[in-house]
Structure formats: C-alpha cells, structure tokens
C-alpha cells in the first residue's frame, strides 16, 4: 500500500510545482487556480487535494456552490480516472486509507463568512475531530469586499497553520494570459503566492504557472479534456 501511494505521488505531474521540498505553499500562504467557467478548476483542485491526501495530509475542502454529495463524487471520479490512467487494481483499500484525511464543508455563498468558518474549524479542532493541513475553497465570489474576507482568512490560516488554495472564476469577456491578470484578481493579487491559469486550446487545456516556483526544466502540464486529469506533455 505504501509503495502504491509513493508511486502515485512520484507520478503526479503536480510534483514540479514548488521548491525543492516540493511544497508550493507554506502555512498561511494563498494559491489560486484561475479559469473561465467549466474549464476544470474543481478537477485541478481535487487533484491537488488527492496528492496531499496520498501524502497523509489532512485536507479540508470547502465548497460554496456544491453539496457534500457532489463534492464526494468529484473525488471519486478523479480517483477512478487516476486508477484507470495508471491501470491500478485493488484501489479500494487505498481509497479507504485516504478518506479519513478528507473533510468537506459546504456553505451557501451568500451565507459564508470567515467568522462562521472559524467557528466551524474550532468545532473540529477543539474536539480533536479534524486538523486541516491544507484548505481548498471552491466557489468564493471574488467581488466587492473579498479583500477584507481574504485578509481575515489569512490570519486564521497563519494561526491554524495551513495554506489555502482557491478557485477563481474568470469572467467570460476577460482574457487570461501569463502577463495580465483578470480584473477580479488584480485588486487582491498581492495576497497570493501562487497563481495558476487554465486556458483551453484546440486539443487540451493548458496549465500556465502565472506566479510561483516551479521546476523550470520540467515539461509543461496540461489538463486532458476527456478525463480532466493533469498530465505532462512528454
């Protein structure tokens, strides 16, 4: 089992993100994946989460747009696609070992606040139920007032010791390029240490590291539009 996990970690194209210790984000730091609707932000984040789960880290996945059941389905789907891709068998045992490291929280977007999240986190940690080591937030609207919320969240993340990855929706009329950030992010981009853009081309979805460390010699990554799995162009 341990070998299977290690094998999957080593094969994961995401390993090229970050510095030598292979961790793109430190405690309290923010990262984000940017793309237009339906391009694969959630699939990307779920793969990032699975990579951490395989390493035995606790991942708290927060969704403001989907119910728990739907988020669970995302994980199952991506995990099965990975198993198929690498032709793995007897994966149910592996799945069972990573499941206790995942916790899903969903909120209504209009009802979400950092204070509420902090309260929920305290419910978990004070009773020793779950201690997140990585947090993923999918569906947070990056509109007016988001800067204050992000600043508050940064304090919580530092205090509780976890990095946070966000999904940021790029408006349909804005273009995504490595040199120019969409307006929605522009105002708060200084809070992010890592920014990744997803941009569809004819055959695949290109993954652009807009900001952050990565292995410069590594082959570029892309999302396979059929499975939404991250792959290397080798």
């Amino acid at each position, binding site marked *: 089992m341990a070998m299977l996990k290690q094998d999957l970690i080593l094969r994961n194209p995401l390993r090229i993100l970050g510095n030598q210790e292979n961790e793109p984000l430190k405690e309290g730091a923010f990262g984000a994946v940017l793309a237009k609707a339906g391009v694969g932000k959630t699939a990307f984040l779920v793969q990032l989460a699975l990579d951490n789960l395989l390493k035995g880290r606790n991942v708290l996945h927060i969704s403001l747009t989907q*119910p*728990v059941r739907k988020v*669970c389905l995302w994980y199952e789907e991506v995990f099965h696609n990975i198993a198929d891709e690498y032709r793995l068998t007897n994966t149910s045992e592996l799945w069972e070992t990573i499941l206790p490291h995942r916790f*899903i929280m969903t909120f*209504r977007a209009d009802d979400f606040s950092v204070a509420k999240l902090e309260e929920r986190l305290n419910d978990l940690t*004070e009773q020793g139920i*779950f201690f997140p080591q990585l947090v993923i937030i999918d569906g947070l609207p990056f509109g007016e007032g988001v800067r204050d919320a992000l600043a508050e969240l940064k304090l919580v993340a530092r205090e509780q010791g976890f990095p946070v990855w966000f999904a940021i929706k790029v408006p349909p009329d804005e273009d995504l390029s490595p040199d120019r950030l969409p307006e929605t992010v522009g105002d708060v981009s200084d809070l992010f240490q890592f920014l990744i853009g997803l941009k569809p081309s004819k055959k695949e979805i290109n993954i652009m590291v807009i900001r952050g460390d990565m292995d410069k010699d590594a082959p570029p990554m892309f999302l396979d539009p059929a499975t939404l799995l991250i792959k290397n162009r080798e």
Partner: protein
Amino acid sequence: METYCNKLFCSEVGKKMKKDPAKVRNIGISAHIDAGKTTLTERILYYTNKIHAIHDVKGKDGVGATMDFMELEKERGITITSAATYCEWDGHEINIIDTPGHVDFTIEVERALRVLDGGVLVLCSVGGVQSQSITVDRQMARYKVPCIAFINKCDRSGANPYRVIDQLKEKLHHNAVALQVPIGLENNFQGVVDLVSMKAVYFEGQQGEKIREDEIPAELMAEVEERREELIDAASMYSEELMEAALEGDVPEALLIEAIREGTLKREITPVFVGSAYKNKGVQPLLDAVTRYLPEPSQVENRALDLENDEEEVVLSADPDAPLVALAFKLEEGRYGQLTYIRVYQGTLRKGDFIVNSRTGKKVKVGRVVRMHADQMEDIEEIPAGYIGALFGIDCASGDTFTSPGIRYSMTSMHVPEPVISLAIVPEDNKSQQNMSKALSRFTKEDPTFTVRVDHETGDTIISGMGELHLEVYIERMKREYDAIVHTGAPQVAYRETISRRADFNYTHKKQTGGAGQYGRVAGYMEPCEEEFEFVNKIVGGAIPTEFISSVEKGFRSALDKGILLGFPVTGIRVVINDGQAHSVDSSDTAFQAAARGAFKEGFKKAKPIILEPIMKVAVETPSEFQGAVMGSLNQRRGMILGTQDEGEMCVIEAEVPLSEMFGYSTDLRSSTQGKAQFTMEFSTYRQVPKSLAEELVKKAQEKKKAA
C-alpha cells in the same frame, strides 16, 4: 364556476369506463417521515368518496388514518406497509401505494416504485428537502419514475414553499417549476393561485370540499405573472406551438398543460403544487395534476426477461389481449388468508384463469380477484394491463412473476439490499413457538430483506434485517398478529470475515482405521479478491480425479458459511487448487469435501484473517447551533465525518459510522440537541474492524463458545 363535485360525479360515471388504460394512473406517494403523506392520502380518499370521514394520523378519535391500517402503524404514527388502494377522480382510476418514509423500510419503497408509473413527492414547507427525500428521490430516479411535487404544511409557522423549490433544484437537481402560488402563508394560508387557469382557488366547507374559484388577489398579481412566465418558459421547451403562442401573448390552457405533461413524462420538469393536507387545502388540484401530468401505463416502457431465450429482454405491451405478464409485488396475511398484491403489465388476469409462476413453474388457478382500499376490499372479475389488484389463495413469494401458460417471462429482479443487523429470538412457551414459526414463514415471504436462520450451536432462531426499527416492528407484529411472545437478545451486527494476504494450504483427510476408509489430499493457495468467492482449478495430470473437483469446491463453499474468528460468513476469497492426491478405494465425495474444509481452515488461519463490519451512511439534520455537539457524538461512535452542509439555520452532517456503534443513537441525539435534530441511516459498505476491537470480539466469541 366549476366545482369539484362535478369531478366526483364524473368519477361515479367513470366506474363504467374501466379497461381504458389511458385513464389509469398508478402513483406512489413518497416523502420524508412526517412530511404528511399519510394525511394527504387520507384526504385524497375522502375527496374521492372512498372514505366518508377524515381521521388523523395519531388521531385523537382513536381511529387513525385509513391507510395506516395495521394497529402498530396507528400507534406509532408511521406507515409501515405500503397499502395499495384505488380511487376515482375526474373519470380516471387512480391506484395509490402509500409508502413508508423511514429508511429501515426502504425495500417497501423500492417495491412500490417498481410497480408505479408516477410519483408524488411530498415535501414539508418548513423542513424542505430532508435527507430521506434525497433517498426517495434517488430511488425514483433508479426506476425512472416521473414525479410531481406537493409542498405540504403551508399553514405551519416558518412555511416557505419557494425555499423548498430552490432546494428541489439545488439538492435534487430537479427542474422544479411552480404551478401554483400560495395565497397567504402560515396562519394566513387561504388558498392557491392556479398558474395554468390564472384563477384563485379557495377551499371552503367544513372539510374543504367546496371549491370556490375567484379573481387573483391584486396584491399577488405581480408575483403570479412572474411565476407564470417562468412556467411558460420551462414548458415552451417541449412545444414549439406553445413557444409561438407565448410570443404572441396568448397561451391556450390545453397547450400549456400538454407541454408541462411532456416535460414531466421525460423527467425534465417537476411541476410543484402547494397546500396543507391537514387544513384541507390544495388536495383537489393535486388530484387534477395526477390525472393531467403523470403517465398512463402505456406511456411507460416495461421490460421482462425471457427465461426460455437466455434471459433476453422483451418489451411488454400494455395490450389487455396479449399473453399475461404480472408481478406479485407484495404479500400480506389478511383476515381471509394470504393476499397477493399484483400489477398486471401485459394481458388480463381473470378470475378462473390458469396462470404460471415463472420461478417455480407451478400452474395455479386464479380464485378471488379483488381491488383493495386500505383494509377493505371489493371483488372484481379481472385485472387488465396497467392495473393493480390483489389475489387470494395464491402461494408465491414477493417478487414472483406470473404469466399465461406458454410463455416464461420474469420481470427484472428488484434491487434487494443485504440485511445488516441480527437478533436472537426465543419464544416464551410452546404455543408461542408454533405461532412464531408461522409468523416468520409469512414475514420472510413478504419481505426479502428480512431473513431467518437457526444457529446450530446455540439453537437460537436468528432474525436479520435492515435496522433496529425494522426488526422491532416484526417482533411487535409477531405479538399482535400471531400471539407469539418472544424474548430477544442484544442486537447483533452482521460481521463478515475475510483474509488479508495469500497463504498456502496442503491438507490430507485420512480415516483408514477399520471399515470403509476416507482419503483425500487438497493443496493450493488462497488470496484476497474483490468477488465474494472464486474457485480456480489448476490441477494438471489428474492429481485429484475430475469427478472429485466439484466435491472439493463444495467443501470450500460450505466452509465459507462460518469463519474461524467469530463464526460469521467468509467473503472476498479466491481459492486456487494446484495439487492433491486420491486413493483408488478410499477416496469419495465425502472425503474430498472434508479435505477441502480442512484445507480451508489451514489456509484461512495462515492468511491473516480479519473481521469486516457494516458501515452505515448517516445523515443528521440539525439546527446549526448543535453542529459541534452532533459532530462530537458521531466522532465518539467511531464515525468518520464526510462533510457538513450549512443551510442557513439548519445544517446536515454526513458521516460513515459502524452499525455496531449506532444502537441507541436516536436517544443520544435527542438529548444532545433538545430533540431538534433527526437522522437517517442506510447501509454503505463493509470495512475492517480496528485491531483492538477485533481482538475483543474474538475473545467474546470464544467465551460464548465455551459457555455453550
């Protein structure tokens, strides 16, 4: 002004219009427990003249609702068996199956859905889409049942039907479209605005039986117009004619109804109605909707398997003159003997006909044919295709298919979950012993998720089922219906045993001391696998003669019944035999079976056996203030919390918890949430028991064995 009395008059005339399948509706009423489906059914029966007085669930008058006809149901205020009944409305014959809302009785819901063509999903306007509604919705989706929704209890404080419509969209992914707008809510709930006819409808008279149609109140006009536009937009997807009419600003009622029906039948639109069954408001328009929007039997494609032709799928025709195909979907021990509820899919089932049970091949003569109204019945001559009725004096099991002689079809098998909990029962005296046997034989025929076996070591009778409540209900029924008093042991979880690594075996069974000898040697290995059991023969050169290979397999299979750790069934094992030895005189079927059993024991011990336990998917719905407490309580019970879903004032916590830890949870939950939370649970999977606990279990099992 149209009154609903006219519709009743039509329905009396309708008695003569039988055998018109286009006017038949087979519907189920499904919902979360306490959403009010039994009350709704009761009102439907009242307005369709099937009953002449209204009784409440947990009624103050001590009579109880008509559909909850078992005494026990009346007492607990829950519906256990899905009583089938029929009524007539506006010239249509409606067969209703009232289904249980508690998840322990899911097999009843599944069975009901198997024979239905359409469903009414009842939701509480305060509670909204609750966890059981999600389960029921999933079941409806599995059987592709088109449905309409009824948002009940609009008179309750906190009623918010629009929030429920949003939940239908968000949680159940229904394209929910309001067909009515409530006039007032909570204490002030007066009636509904019909968005199709654009009339206000009020329910007057002592029991809401007098319908008064009026102009739409001016203060509601803006909202009504907005909702009607949404409705026309949604329905236009199914009718170009309607789209054009909408553009011209003149939408004929019939065109709109037809388009909504089209969308509903495709399961792409869920029309939503509102009301309060308890306050007698909104029930008659719902009946109209059942006849307008839910399918007639011929619009639903039903398939059977042709047993004579390699189980090839055949599409059945709703033709009453075609050969008969009918499904016995429910058995009941009635006052006059066994009653078999049956749905005819093809042909006609007539009194005096000979029909064949496809499973047993037995030919039986049809005796009495009846149509049920809760616990009353009406004798009829025949049940044509598309109808539901009941037969007397037919010996069969639930789920059996009956056909005309000459064809051998079987309706696709129903999804039957494995029982997860067991209980030892001991009859109090001889009389109870006899009655208990009768009761158990009946219950196991009625309910495939309820099973009975005898533990040969202790001599105890063990009953198994889907949950604590499921078994409790049968114990009570034994007492009340069969006068069998039984004492019960502690509930016992249905553990399984399996192996965690490969191990070799090489076992010789030898008994050659006087008399006829026995000899057989079996060698090979066993390893974990995903299937329940796999037997692979890799013997070359006749080390075990071919005629004994099946004996060896039989021996291994019999060993699976009882693992060596706790004595629970063994699962997930591949056995490969690759060597062995026989004796020209002393080898026999018995000898090789015994050798295989010995080999199994030897291999099993070496293959690091482990214990698996049933894990339940638990959903707790609680006010947000108790979220922390509920998570703590689940965590204490070895629960793995999958996630929490915040929904404003309420939240849902989803977790996977070992069944063995869930005993008495309802009491615990009540006390930690001031009775404001509720939970549902269903079987999810089997998972390994933690090592320390496994050791404890093994120790206890050994002590029990010694004591026995």
